[in-house]
């Protein structure tokens, strides 16, 4: 089966996020003072060929631990796993 696994990486709270801070300032000067905080992370989609959804999840977790997130400063979350029907039709 082919899956799309969506992963988000975020900086740990203790790690400075100058990009988020600058973006927060910009939102503030746009007239959105209700925005109290901005943190910028990454959103990653993996196309995974695996026997089951659980296997796809395990592969995505291994990918995240080994490369996609740096455990010193980032955490990761698997947001969603969807079957990728299009991929199956072509291959």
């Amino acid at each position, binding site marked *: 089966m082919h899956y799309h696994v969506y992963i988000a990486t975020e900086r740990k709270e*203790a*790690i*400075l996020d*100058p*990009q988020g801070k*600058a973006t927060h300032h910009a939102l503030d000067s746009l007239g959105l003072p209700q925005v109290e905080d901005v943190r910028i992370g990454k959103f990653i989609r993996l196309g995974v060929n695996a026997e089951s959804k659980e296997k796809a999840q395990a592969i995505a977790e291994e990918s995240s631990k080994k*490369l*996609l997130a*740096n455990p*010193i*400063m980032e955490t990761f979350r698997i947001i969603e796993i969807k079957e990728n029907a299009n991929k199956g039709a072509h291959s």
Partner: protein
Amino acid sequence: MKTRIIVFPGSNCDHDAMHAVANVMKNSDTEFVWHKQDSIGKGIDLVILPGGFSYGDYLRTGAIARFSPVMKDVIRFANEGGTVIGICNGFQVLCESGLLPGVLIRNQALKFRCKWVNLRGENTDTRFTNALLPGEIIKVPIAHGEGLYMAETEVLRELEANKQVVFRYVSEKGEVVSEANPNGSINNIAGIINKEGNVMGMMPHPERACEAILGSADGKKIFSSLARHFEFSRSLNEAQI
């Protein structure tokens, strides 16, 4: 000093490093090693991970380079006590590969900083800094967008306690002040060494400051320190035989 300079796609200070070691230091056995090679060769004294933008800084600086075929052998070499220096992007690669603790993130001001800085030698009892006087200030350039060094509190405490902070950004007078800190690094950290003392990473570029005509020859002291270290170990080995 048998030196190998690792070249990743996107490295751009590899030739500066070659010039400093081969021409200025007059070290004939200096070669490039392309990242696809799986070995750095035998009997190597020094491995240099040069500055640049390996793999376009994709994902995180140094994150992809760390998985280049040659890095397996560089990590083996370092774990066996081999001498490795990572400069700028090379420092980022060393942190990503776990050979040095901590991370380098986007400069606090969000700007690429390209300027001369003053560094204070904090630990001159290393193979990389033995030609410096304790507390000596050297002038070398920086050129980076992601040089803010940080680590977990416990790691920082250990780094400081073990004198693993080798260089700090300081004012001309040698004061550790925030105005002298170009990127927001914790404790003004510009370079660190591992606990074993054989792997050093620094954001500033000593290889670009090895001749007076370039504005400073202070960077040469790092390569002179290494040359001295290898000469000394060699004579020690011979004496034992």
